[in-house]
């Protein structure tokens, strides 16, 4: 792995112009002026007076200076904001854990308010004893902690036909990565006793949409988690308080929020969410169904259109996220020339199964334009494809499961734009 690298030889021809342009925009920054910095030489109010007391904010929000790092909506995408989606500000985050307060939301009938006291979970269908659990019952089962990513199958869906939305938040923000605490679904199913005819489970939420989905029993008994905490705290309302399902590596629509019922069945129910939606129409008009696994994918979060380079040429941290529904990320390659040449980035931590990895590539930017790409490779050897490769297989009418390589055109002034390249 490469910790640091120089611009590749193919870029050398641009160095001269790059430097010339770059020199013009080398801005303000810190510390190299001839005049003393008043932030240092003058006593600042925060260094003299007093800050807030301990009870000023019983449960804190980010400081006001970070008010742009929030979930954003794309109003033209959906008919209204109730059955809709917004986007995680991945361009402004670092590390791998997504704070719940800015993790994207997708509701089909709005985010409901359901008290723990009013919470009931039913297991019925092909079981020996249909059961009802209260929230307190769930807390008495042996518990596990896991970090998992949740990606909406429609993430990057608007980019299928071409470069469309100008920001990593909008192109790749239907994703979050949290540490969940909860009970393996297997334990609950075993408590009810699965009958031999049982091959599937049908899971639904307590909200008006119910958002029912069918999951093969094999997956249900493997790693599906019934979670009630995320990142250490109770699930936020918008993430399914008090209880949601985690279906590691599989499309987010199956992670039922406000989970209220698990039915063991001998067949898939083929609900609205698994027939009319979350199916993938190929060029010949035939559609794939049950496309549950999220393919390996990555994106550079900075620099990117919402996170331009402001410091001019010199040391530059290129960073981004990578994930795979088939297991851990093995490594991530980064290209600054639109995919001609690649260098392997540094993972902040070794990849974990079905969890996001953070990658860094530390370069000495020469100030010339870059066509910045990242390419994830997971532990199964799956290599994130280009959009052309995907279109060759799937045609032009897909919406979901677009895991193509993303390109940011970084200009000499440090601004970046979402583009497609040949």
């Amino acid at each position, binding site marked *: 792995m490469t910790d640091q690298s120089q611009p590749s030889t193919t870029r050398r021809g641009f160095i001269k112009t790059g430097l010339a342009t770059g020199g013009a925009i080398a801005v303000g920054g810190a510390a190299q002026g001839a005049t003393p910095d008043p932030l240092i030489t003058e006593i600042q109010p925060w260094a003299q007076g007093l800050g807030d007391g301990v009870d000023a904010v019983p449960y804190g929000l980010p400081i006001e200076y970070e008010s742009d790092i929030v979930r954003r909506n*794309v109003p033209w995408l959906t008919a209204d904001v109730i059955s809709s989606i917004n986007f995680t500000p991945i361009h402004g985050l670092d590390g791998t854990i997504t704070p719940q307060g800015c993790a994207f939301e997708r509701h089909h009938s709005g985010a409901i308010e359901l008290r723990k006291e009013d919470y009931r979970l039913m297991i019925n269908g092909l079981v020996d004893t249909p059961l009802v659990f209260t929230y307190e019952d769930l807390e008495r089962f042996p518990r596990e902690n896991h970090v998992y990513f949740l990606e909406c199958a429609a993430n990057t869906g608007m980019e299928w036909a071409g470069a469309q939305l100008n920001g990593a938040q909008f192109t790749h923000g239907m994703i979050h990565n949290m540490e969940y605490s909860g009970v393996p679904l297997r334990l609950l199913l075993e408590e009810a006793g699965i009958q031999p005819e049982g091959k599937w489970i049908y899971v639904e939420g307590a909200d008006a949409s119910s958002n029912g989905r069918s999951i093969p*029993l094999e997956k249900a008994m493997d790693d599906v988690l019934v979670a009630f905490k995320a990142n250490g705290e109770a699930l936020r309302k918008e993430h399914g308080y008090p209880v949601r399902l985690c279906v590691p590596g599989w499309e987010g629509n199956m992670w039922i929020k406000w989970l209220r019922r698990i039915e063991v069945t001998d067949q898939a129910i083929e609900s609205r969410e698994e027939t009319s939606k979350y199916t993938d129409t190929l060029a010949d008009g035939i559609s794939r169904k049950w496309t549950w696994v999220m393919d390996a994918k990555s994106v550079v979060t900075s620099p990117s259109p919402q996170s331009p380079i402001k410091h001019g040429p010199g040391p530059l941290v290129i960073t981004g996220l990578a994930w795979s529904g088939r297991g851990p990320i093995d490594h991530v390659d980064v290209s600054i020339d639109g995919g001609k040449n690649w260098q392997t980035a540094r993972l902040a931590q070794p990849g974990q199964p079905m969890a996001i990895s953070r990658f860094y590539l530390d370069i000495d930017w020469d100030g010339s334009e870059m066509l910045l790409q990242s390419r994830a490779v997971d532990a199964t050897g799956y290599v994130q494809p280009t959009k052309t490769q995907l279109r060759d297989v799937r045609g032009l009418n897909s919406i979901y499961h677009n895991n193509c390589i993303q390109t940011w055109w970084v200009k000499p002034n440090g601004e970046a734009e979402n583009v497609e390249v040949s």
Partner: protein
Amino acid sequence: MSKCRNLWISTALAATLVAGPAMAEKLGLGRPALPEEIAAWNVDVAPDGTGLPVGSGSVEDGEMLFSENCAVCHGEFAEGVDNWPKLAGGDGTLDHEDPLKTVGSYWPHLSTVFDYVHRSMPFGGAQTLSPDETYAIVAYILFSNYIVEDDFVLSNENFLDVTMPNADGFIVDDRDETELPLFTQPACMSDCKDSVEITMRAAVLDVTPDVIGEDEVQAAAEISAAAEAQETAPIAMPDPKLVAAGEKVFRQCASCHQIGDGAKHRVGPVLTGVVGRKVGQAQGFKYSPSVEKAAQDGMIWDHDTLDAYLESPRSVIPKGRMSFQGLRSADDREAVIAYLRTFN
């Protein structure tokens, strides 16, 4: 099969599915679900008809029910309003550019239509349709897709006789066969292509929402300040600042309602002159039975009624057709009422 035997078999099954230790002992948590409880929640319908309630409904009844319950979003002929889903049409478009996916052109199972309408529709009034009403609405959706004739009556008896046009249009995920061999080749690291050209730019399309600007922050502050002033000093005509703020809030209403000169009825009625007037009085608009009833009861769109209605439409007019989530902010409601008043 006896329960004992089932338990034994399920233990064996679970053991085969779960690698590692044998099945844990039961903890004895939870309680048995009662039949009434299961009946209340276990309403899903499978493709083979499992779960269908006894009942029936005609296209004729369905047309009326659809108009009352569904048309506000899906259109009188299931053709869809604005961005809301189209339920009819699209026949033969699946292998074309931008296929139109509707119940008729795309949905493989009729069970899904019944299940979804019965469980989750109408939007904002889920689980208010009886089985018979649901059969009727599903029959009308079939009729609007030319799948059945206008004298058709759908029931649990003939449900499986209906053939959905795209029933054979789906295959199970085949990425393991069609994509994995292609995408697990060793990755190229250098000189992977001769040239790179930019072929498309997002900035040219320009559909990205603007960054949150100071304008929006300032606008919100202005709404708040103006609303406060209005409350503390009621005056005959609303504060111009409040009106301006209300005009912005009204954008949320404007997809369904027009107001002022040249306004026409859209999904919702024209709102010119609505403040202080009796409910349901816009000429030429076909109101829901609920609004008609409110009008008969003498409901007036005075300030407090409008405020309550804008906060939560269906708590003021139950079963009304306005599928709007409501304005949570009292300041926003104050502002938009002020804006509406200027058209009196």
